[in-house]
Each structure stands twice: as structure tokens, then as C-alpha cells.
């Protein structure tokens, strides 16, 4: 809405006239960008360019880097842990494209019906989002998964055969993903609900009068109405799924036996535990490539939506 009013005002008043009467506004205003850009270049752009360069060097972080061409990539690609990590990122992406999106959509459409209590539920669902990831991780680890102090241990003592998912190689990744799901789905629910409220009320009422069921309403009115929001959230999900770090690092450190390793924890381990910064940079570039593809679509959708 903001950009609409801006566009209308923009066509009615030739702002250029006023601007040109002032002494070179362009030059003055360029200065306003400088603090942001200095910080951005020093922290992000220059180190990012250095990462690209470092991927072609052997470096332990202390002595002089040695140029080794593509050796880092060869070493990374011939490491089976890398492929496990990449597969885990893909599995993670698939889970997060389906489960929290579905939970969020179902809950959001129900909030539409529950007029009186919607604000209460919205706040409750959003609570996990504002809790620090380190704390969420420890609560799940100690109070739910732990065979000694957690709910799983309690269930075990009552004869329900549940083990700690974090200590099994086939379950560790899903154990971690569940924690992130808990932390995350409420955010999507709140975003989808905000979008659903923008769907024209006449469309919903017309469908009701024609006797549409819940699923028909969802399929033909609500989902098409918020498709841009769903697409955007799915693109961001892909980006974030390749960045996931905190929960894996705190809960399993990528273990047991690298079964829950993801690319970001692999890169972190290469850099700070193996002191193999070149290989860490190579893995970081792989992460960035996946992110870049998704980022391309993200920027395209955002700019189209805002008519830049």
C-alpha cells in the first residue's frame, strides 16, 4: 500500500522541479549512504571476496596462504561427510518446505474462523520465535529428549519404548529438525494469517453462500489469494535451510558419526577445529551458490511486487 500511494503522489507532483532548484541534492544525499556502506563493505563485502579467494588457497589461519588451485574443492568433494551434509541440507529443505508451511496454513485459516480468540492464539504461536535458539535447544535437549531428565525418559520408565533421538544416527537429524520446527512454524502461521486477512471478504462470503466446504474454500479461494506470500516464504525457507547452524551445533555438533552434519557446521568445523580455512571457504562457497539461486528469485519477486 505504501508504494501505491507513493506512485500516485509521484505522478501528480513533479518532484524534480524542486530538487533541481536545490544545490546538487544528489551529491549531498550520497553522503547519507556512506555509514551503512562502510560497515557493510568492511564486514560483509570484503570478507566475502576474501572467502572466494581463500577457497583456492591452503591456509591454517596463521601462516602465509599457499595457492593450491582447485585442491580444496577436490578434497571437499571427495569427502563423504560433505555429501552427507549436503544430503542433510536437502532433506532439511524438503521437511521445512512442507511441515511448517502446512501447519502454518492450517492454523492461519483456522484463526480466520476463530474471531474472538485469534489474537491470543497468534501471540502464543509467536512466543517460540522470540526465544533464543540456544535456550530452545537446551530445553528440548534436557527437558524433552533426555533419557534421564526429560519427557522421553519419563515415558521410557512408564514402558513406552522411546530413545533419545539425538543419539541415534538415523534419527539425530529429525530430532534437531523437530526443535527448529517448533521454533519456526508459528512465524509462518502469523505471516500467512496477516496475508489471509487481505483476501477480499466478498470472495470468502460468495464461496460460503455457494456452500463451499473448508477444503474447497482453501483450495479455490484462500490459497490462490495468498499465493505470492506462500511463494516468498518458500523461497526464504530454501535460503534459510542452507544456513541452518545453531540448533545442529548446540544439539549434536553434527554427530553422532556426522549423521546430522549440515554444510554450515561442516564449514565451521573445518575453519575453527581443523584450522583448514581454505576448505571451510570452499564449503562456504557451495552454501552460497545454493543461497544465490534462491536469492535471485527472492530479489526478483520482491522488486516485482514493489514495482521498483
Amino acid at each position, binding site marked *: 500500500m505504501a508504494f501505491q500511494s507513493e506512485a500516485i503522489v509521484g505522478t501528480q507532483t513533479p518532484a524534480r522541479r524542486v530538487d533541481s532548484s536545490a544545490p546538487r541534492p*544528489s551529491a549531498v544525499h550520497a553522503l547519507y549512504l556512506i555509514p551503512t556502506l562502510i560497515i*557493510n563493505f568492511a564486514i560483509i563485502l570484503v570478507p566475502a571476496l576474501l572467502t572466494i579467494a581463500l577457497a583456492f588457497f591452503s591456509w591454517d589461519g596463521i601462516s602465509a596462504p599457499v595457492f593450491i588451485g582447485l585442491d580444496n574443492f577436490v578434497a571437499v568433494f571427495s569427502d563423504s561427510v560433505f555429501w552427507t551434509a549436503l544430503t542433510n541440507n536437502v532433506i532439511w529443505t524438503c521437511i521445512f518446505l512442507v511441515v511448517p508451511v502446512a501447519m502454518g496454513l492450517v492454523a492461519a485459516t483456522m484463526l480466520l474462523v476463530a474471531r474472538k480468540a485469534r489474537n491470543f492464539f497468534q501471540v502464543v504461536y509467536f512466543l517460540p520465535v522470540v526465544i533464543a535458539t540456544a535456550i530452545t535447544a537446551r530445553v528440548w535437549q534436557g527437558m524433552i529428549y533426555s533419557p534421564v531428565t526429560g519427557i522421553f525418559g519419563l515415558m521410557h520408565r512408564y514402558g513406552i519404548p522411546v530413545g533419545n533421538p539425538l543419539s541415534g544416527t538415523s534419527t539425530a537429524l529429525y530430532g534437531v529438525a523437530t526443535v527448529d520446527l517448533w521454533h519456526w512454524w508459528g512465524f509462518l502461521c502469523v505471516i500467512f494469517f496477516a496475508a489471509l486477512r487481505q483476501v477480499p471478504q466478498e470472495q470468502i462470503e460468495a464461496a460460503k453462500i455457494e456452500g463451499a466446504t473448508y477444503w474447497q474454500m482453501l483450495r479455490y479461494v484462500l490459497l490462490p489469494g495468498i499465493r505470492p506470500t506462500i511463494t516468498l516464504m518458500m523461497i526464504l525457507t530454501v535460503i534459510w535451510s542452507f544456513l541452518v547452524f545453531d540448533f545442529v551445533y548446540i544439539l549434536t555438533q553434527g554427530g553422532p558419526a556426522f549423521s546430522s552434519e549440515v554444510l554450515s557446521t561442516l564449514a565451521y568445523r573445518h575453519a575453527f577445529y581443523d584450522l583448514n580455512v581454505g576448505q571451510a571457504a570452499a564449503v562456504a562457497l557451495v552454501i552460497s551458490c545454493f543461497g544465490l539461486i534462491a536469492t535471485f528469485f527472492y530479489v526478483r519477486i520482491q522488486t516485482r511486487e514493489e514495482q*521498483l
Partner: protein
Amino acid sequence: MNLVEGRFTMIVTYVALGIGAFIALFPIALLVLNSLKPAAQIVVSPLALPWPFRWDNFAHAWRDAHFSQTFVNSAMLTAMTIVLVCTTGSLTAYVLARRKIKSWKIWTFYLMATTTAPIQLFLFPLYFGYAKLGLINNPPAVSLIYAALYSPFAIMLLRTYFLAVPKELEEAALVDGANHWQVFTQVMLPIVSPGILTVALIIGLYSWNEFLIATTFLQKADKATAVVAFNLLSGQYSSDWGEIMAAALLIVLPVVVLFLFMQRRFIEGMAGGSVKG
């Protein structure tokens, strides 16, 4: 025509929403319950109600996680980040929203792309660069990293607030003889101040909760943030889950209280900028 949902639909809806609320609240309830219990009682059952309340957990947590120091560190780091992001971000957002420079499009694209940049893309050279400059364990230097990380998001969000300000206001001020700086500080900033407050809240939340950067760059116990100290406490120094949950509650409580008072701003702001924390 007033449409009322059938009774059956309402029951199903509320039951489903209730299940969702249970899922969201259950781990939080465990956190609160067990923060008041001695370790031995947690082993018996994490679900049992605490009695008598073991307030000692909080004293032990406060001491063992060095909260008298680490809370101050977190607060300082958060405050510095908020100031940096809000000042530099509002300047940039104003120029980009108002298309004050020819290259506004390029910079908008660039900043939008950096909102999604993976931390690992710049983390390693940055760390060794900081180490060389002696900036490890230096909270102001870390707030610069947060500022770089969060300001693209803040700028995108603030941009929408600047876009909503009618151009006539600015033009009228210029005609009245105000210079560009006065237009920005005395006309624009007061109008977009609700947006700046929203940004401050969200950036504050992110900085307070941040883990990866803080744990990498602030390693000394007296420089660590509360979240990093909590992670060390729960990972190495203690297996007393009552104490660990008490430490967790101390960190979470201020955030949750602030969130409950300012929920609309939090939700609208995070939805508007769409960044995962």
C-alpha cells in the same frame, strides 16, 4: 448477510487451535516448572509441580553464568547495535525510498541480496582479520558485525515507512527554506519514528538472542553475552537442569515481557522485513 460458522466447525477449530497452543506452550511450561525444582526432583519427573519452590536455582544460575557481568555485556551489545542500525539505517532508507541518488536501484538490489547472505560467506576471513587487529572479545567490534548483518533488513523495513510519507511535506519544508539535513531530521524522522521504534525492538531481539557470532567472537567469560554464558553453563559447567532452566528463564523473561507488551510491533515488523532469527 451475517454468516455464523456452524457449531461443529467452531468446535473443531478451537480444538485444533488448542492443540497448536499446547505444542507451543509445552516446552515453555517445562522451562518454567523445572527452573524451580532441585535436580533430584527433575530426574523423578520433569512434569511434577515444584514444591517447595527452589529459589536457590536462580542465585546459582546468576553466579555460575556470571550474569552480573554477561547481562551487562548483552545489554551494551544490544544497545550499541540498535543505535548503529537505527542511525545508519534511517539515513540510507530515506535516500533509497525517496530516490535521492541516481544509483538508488543498484543499492536497493545490493542490500536486498545481502539480507540473505550466508554468514559463512564472510565469517572466516572476518574472524582472522579481527584476530589480527586484536578485536576478538571486543563487544563494540561485534556490534559492528551485528549492524552489518541486520541493517539491510532494517533498511528494507524503514524504506516502507519513508515511502508512506507524502512528498508534499518535504517540498513544503524546502520551499520554506529548510536545508536537506533539516528536512531529514525535523520533517521526516519524527514522522517515521514509529517505524524506527519497531526496527529498534526487532534488532534488539536479534542481538540479545544471537548465538553464532557471539560464541565465535566473544570467547572470554567476562566478555561473553548472556546467551553464550548460558550455553557454556549448560554444556560444560553444570548438569543441574534446575539451575540451567533458571538461567534460561532469566534470559527469556525480559524478552517475553517486552514481546507481550509490544506484540503488534514485533509481529508486524518481523513480517514486514521477513528475516529469520
